């Protein structure tokens, strides 16, 4: 993986000092909260309901064991012993003290990590394919370009105060695993007919209040020109994106207002001036960065270890895990292992300090000391020898990391929701838990097969509910403070689509029943081996809607007065939650 050189380290170290001084000025009252807000956000520090939350960047989701152990250390020393992995391949700590955050960043800098631009109206952490470099369908390895874009966007002086946040995703496989259609800029690194590397560039995708699938702005930008092309997109957006209404400030609104053709014309007029200028990438630079992403020392092995098949026959749990959590690797004798952070009963995406250390140890022993965070909030060990799978499974099981549910109903994507977040209308995590417990039966999950279920506590869509086959969103209503909309038909990948709301919203306890009814319609209507999403696409929303609303859904409701109640943080300085 990429390692800092003296320049990278110096920039991060100077950032820590700059931030340390900003915190000092805030604590002394020199900066008002209003002035401090954009500064702390550009460093990923949020003021949540109960305390400060720090979002730390994991560039394109790649993390070394040393870095993972640092997360465990931060969880223990500064937080409550756990962290939350996010849909942007980052990690969040929920219970920090403002005055500790500069020291946390110093500790992070010692392992080449930071929290730069993990929030704020700037270019955020660049996300990518969690199987980059090992996927069988890979056309071009996206990691060197993700790192080059990370460096380019870090402290870009012109684009630090954009109209709104800006998210870039990059994938290099035939199948898109980075949800590039749902990003402000989506990049597919590919090859043209002559075998030259370049990028298919999508723009104006995004979720949130107004979900939009990105439009193609250019079919092929040669690799040399990708930085200048992205620069021109950002310059047009910075100048003309709306700033009068934060809900209409994302680039997708500008692209819609201008139309993709006019937007392209403006971008290319700007680009004409800087194309071939000094921002043009060089062969040397791409080679230099690519040199950090070469193959690890793979052994010469063959597929199909007989011991595996034997063990599979003996252990149903293991064979289920092999079926769902182990993916084909491009090198014979190796496998990609997905460690599930979705064991029913646990919080989706949460990992304890002990689990983080276990993951680091497993990565050291079985996967060249590296792991990856997925945008579905799981973890990946990308380079495991097939002959190690049994031992790995046994060891990981001891840390509850082997729920055999990847891509199944209980592999739920969930934002933190109203217990933590000041934006959320409703709780997400307890709902995810309730659903996972209701559908815990593995036989049932395997019968249902591939399905995605995504939960967001509000329209901001951190849980990416629009691209879940079933999407659940917390909404505001006057009479009752916790309601959920259910949408159907969303999908990510090459065939991305935005889900459509099925009808009036539901209470917390009604949602699992609603899901059950949706699944019953699927079981009734599906044709042989048809996935849930394919049935939805074939028969449309009608039959689902009809059945869900056909009879009363009345279920006993719990008191929702406790919606924000988790044990509060204790602060030596007064903490005023922005919510209360």
């Amino acid at each position, binding site marked *: 993986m990429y*390692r800092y*050189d003296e*320049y990278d380290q*110096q*920039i991060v170290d*100077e*950032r820590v000092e*700059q931030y340390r001084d*900003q915190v000092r000025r805030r604590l002394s009252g020199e900066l008002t909260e209003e*002035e401090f807000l*954009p*500064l702390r956000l550009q460093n990923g520090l949020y003021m949540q309901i109960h305390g400060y939350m720090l979002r730390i960047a994991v560039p394109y989701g790649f993390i070394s064991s040393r870095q993972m152990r640092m997360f465990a250390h931060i969880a223990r020393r500064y937080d409550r012993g756990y962290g939350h992995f996010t849909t942007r391949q980052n990690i969040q700590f929920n219970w920090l003290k403002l005055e500790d955050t500069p020291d946390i960043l110093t500790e992070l800098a010692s392992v080449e990590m930071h929290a730069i631009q993990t929030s704020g*109206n700037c270019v955020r952490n660049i996300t990518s394919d969690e199987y980059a470099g090992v996927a069988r369908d890979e056309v071009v390895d996206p990691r060197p370009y993700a790192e080059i874009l990370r*460096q*380019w966007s*870090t*402290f*870009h*002086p*012109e*684009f*630090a*105060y*954009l*109209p709104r946040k800006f998210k870039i995703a990059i994938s290099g496989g035939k199948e898109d695993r980075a949800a590039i259609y749902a990003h402000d800029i989506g990049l597919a690194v590919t090859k043209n007919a002559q075998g030259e590397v370049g990028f298919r560039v999508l723009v104006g995708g995004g979720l949130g209040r107004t979900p939009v699938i990105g439009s193609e702005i250019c079919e092929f930008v040669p690799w040399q020109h990708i*930085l200048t092309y992205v620069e021109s997109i950002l*310059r047009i957006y*910075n*100048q003309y994106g709306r*700033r009068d209404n934060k809900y209409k400030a994302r680039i997708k609104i500008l692209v819609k207002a201008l139309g993709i053709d006019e937007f392209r014309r403006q971008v290319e007029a700007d680009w004409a*001036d800087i194309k071939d*200028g*000094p*921002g043009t*990438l*060089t062969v*040397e*630079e791409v*080679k*230099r960065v690519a*040199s*950090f992403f*070469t*193959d690890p020392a793979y052994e010469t092995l063959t597929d199909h270890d007989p011991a595996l098949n034997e063990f599979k026959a003996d252990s149903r749990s293991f064979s289920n895990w092999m079926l769902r959590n182990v993916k084909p690797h491009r090198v014979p004798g190796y496998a990609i292992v997905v460690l599930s952070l979705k064991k029913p009963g646990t919080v989706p995406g949460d990992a304890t300090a002990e689990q983080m250390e276990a993951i680091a140890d497993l990565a050291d022993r079985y996967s060249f000391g590296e792991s990856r965070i997925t945008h579905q909030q799981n973890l990946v060990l990308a380079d495991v020898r097939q002959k190690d799978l049994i031992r790995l499974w046994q060891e990981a099981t001891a840390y509850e990391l082997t729920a055999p549910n990847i891509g199944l109903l209980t592999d739920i994507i969930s934002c933190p929701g109203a217990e933590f977040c000041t934006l959320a209308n409703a709780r997400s995590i307890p709902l995810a838990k309730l659903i996972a417990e209701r559908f815990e039966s593995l036989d049932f999950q395997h019968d249902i097969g591939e399905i995605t279920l995504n939960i967001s506590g509000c329209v901001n869509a951190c849980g990416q509910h629009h691209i879940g086959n079933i999407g659940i969103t917390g909404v505001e209503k006057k009479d009752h403070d916790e309601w959920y909309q259910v949408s159907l038909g969303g999908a990510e990948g090459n065939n991305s689509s935005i889900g459509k709301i099925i009808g009036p919203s539901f209470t917390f306890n009604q949602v699992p029943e609603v899901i059950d009814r949706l699944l019953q319609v699927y079981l009734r209507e599906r044709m042989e081996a048809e996935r849930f999403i394919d049935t939805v696409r074939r028969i449309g929303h009608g039959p689902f809607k009809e059945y869900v609303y056909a009879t009363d859904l009345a279920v006993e409701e719990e008191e929702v007065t406790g919606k924000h109640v988790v044990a509060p943080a204790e602060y030596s300085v007064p903490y005023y939650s922005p919510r209360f």
Partner: protein
Amino acid sequence: MIIKNKAIVADDWVVLRLSEQESADNVTIPAGKVIVPLQVWLQQRDVLQQRDDIGVWLASAERPEDLKDDVHKFSVIAVDFPKFSDGRGYSIAYNLRARLGYTGELRAIGDVLRDQLFYMQRVGFDAFAPRPDRSIEDALKGLSDFSEVYQASFDQKLPLFRRVQHKVNSTADMT
């Protein structure tokens, strides 16, 4: 006092902001060194260009191309930041410098605070009028937050990868 060329210096320019009763075409421009709104310049150009003590300032929604044929007439152009978080001024500055070739003083005015100054100098500002309720000495420190940068902008025409000989990963197989 303003910050200019990384030093705190006296300043004798006056920034003219129109009151609600005044309009760009008939406001009277006082004698002396005045930085007028872009609209005033465009409306009263014939008269104002007789003077050599006129500067112009742009609001964040205005276009630098409106000064296309005039940039060489000014020794000072200012860009207003109505709010700290309004980043349009950075692209205005970049366009004035890189596209329109403006070489005179480029001044940031309005909600200008210490933590923006590093970025501002990168896109071409060389003068800063920090908000008067803040220490100008303190603001000056903002110019030296970082000693290295990755990307090209106006101050640094070459990105880091064209300026330095980076180490290549020595453990990697380059074949």
